[in-house]
């Protein structure tokens, strides 16, 4: 709650200062937009049967186009995408190579009609190099996120929100499989506390699909 208030305060400060989006993207990272709400976790109460038709229709859904590359031209992010699952400990698998993004293959794919498609990437590597997803610190509302797919047209999204949350408070809605379609990009964020294993927060960027790819 404190965080939310601070985010709001920060937003007010930004407004008061008349901070404009500069061409050089100068400025520090600040969260914006509506953070993914915890309410989508309400899916938990859904009787299983009311989910999209369970079995018979599945083969079609399974053949959804797989993401191959993600680009956010406004911040210079360009990463190859590979499918990932979970580690033996139950954490989302993150590709070791900080230049590569992972798509949570158990959830929706980018371009799916429902749910949150999740892409993850390392903020930095173990050898001192920055990850491609480090560029997310500079995204602004309205930035375009393009996901190129194997065997299908690219899908375009516009960034609507960015939030920083403690790792253990990552909202379940980021992984929801039903509801309005969004693309969720996740990396790490400060604080960096080596004694606690490194970064203790996640940066979560939400982007909504663009209905008309031709729109400016």
């Amino acid at each position, binding site marked *: 709650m*404190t*965080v939310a208030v601070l985010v709001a305060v*920060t937003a007010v400060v*930004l407004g008061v200062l008349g901070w404009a989006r500069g061409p050089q993207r100068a400025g520090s990272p*600040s969260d914006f937009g509506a953070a993914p709400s915890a309410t989508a976790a309400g899916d938990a109460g859904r009787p299983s049967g009311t989910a999209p038709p369970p079995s018979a229709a599945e083969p079609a859904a399974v053949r959804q186009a797989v993401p191959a590359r993600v680009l956010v031209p406004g911040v210079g992010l360009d990463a190859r995408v590979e499918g990932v*699952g979970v580690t033996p400990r139950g954490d989302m698998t993150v590709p070791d190579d900080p230049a590569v993004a992972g798509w949570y293959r158990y959830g929706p794919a980018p371009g799916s009609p429902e749910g949150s498609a999740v892409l993850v990437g390392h*903020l930095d590597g*173990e*050898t001192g190099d920055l990850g491609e*997803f480090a560029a997310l610190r500079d995204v602004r509302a309205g930035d375009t996120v393009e996901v190129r797919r194997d065997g299908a047209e690219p899908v375009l999204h516009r960034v609507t929100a960015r939030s920083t949350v403690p790792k253990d408070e990552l909202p379940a809605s980021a992984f929801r499989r039903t509801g309005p379609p969004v693309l969720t990009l996740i990396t790490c964020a400060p604080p960096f506390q080596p004694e606690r294993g490194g970064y203790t927060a996640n940066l979560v960027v939400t982007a909504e699909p663009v209905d008309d790819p031709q729109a400016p």
Partner: protein
Amino acid sequence: MRPRFPVAIAASTGACALALGVAAPAMAAPSAEQETAMVSVVHGIPGMTVDVYANGDELLAGFEPGTVTEPQSLTAGSYDIQIFEAGQGPDGKPALEKTVEVGEGDAATIAAHLSADGKPQLTAFADDVSKVDAGKGRLTVRHIAAAPAVDVRAGGQPVFTGLTNPNGDSAVVDAGTVDADVVLAGTDTVAIGPAEVNVAEGAGTVVYAWGSAEDKNLALATQKFSGMDSMPKGVHAGGGGAAVSANSTTWTPGWAAAGGAVAVAGVLAARRFAGKRG
């Protein structure tokens, strides 16, 4: 032929209390959820196409052996379930009849099947649709065949042992495809399979062994329940700290400095953040 379950329910709305919006996501509304149960039907009696009636209303017509309906929402309550040979209902003598109670929020599957010694019977199974951890699926096996006790193996290793008709067993396993077969309990004598079973992530996969050993028509039927997924425990996408100052609570100054007051606000937020966590 595909079961006419949804159609039949819609058609019977006026006649009885069976129907609520079938398959509508809006069913998640708490009030509706509390008053309804999710009911599936599996047909495991070889050689007999049937019509299924509930409280005198037709639920399923031309229901073929080896098929499983998708879960449907029914108002919680008591149902007189009658199974007729196709075209014989509702005034004829049912082949099978049983009163089934479904409580609010229940998930249940009604199986028409053969007993271990080959007599048709109806059994109601409770379906476990509780959440599973990310990366997992719930695999359930149910013995509804005219056959003795069996073991179910995955990759040649017994996973469920000593299963008898009409019982089931369940386990949460890693999602993925398993190579399964059914053997006579305690032996390597394969009764069914091998067959590939896809244990979907965040879902329930129920495999029925049905048919008759004596008639050599033992087979598997599969049922799926979705919506049991959980999010991963965490997303650890950081490395050595190159993106921050040493032991820092904020981004590397070079990235943030240009922001002036904005940066200050960010730092404050981050510090509060750290304080809260400490």
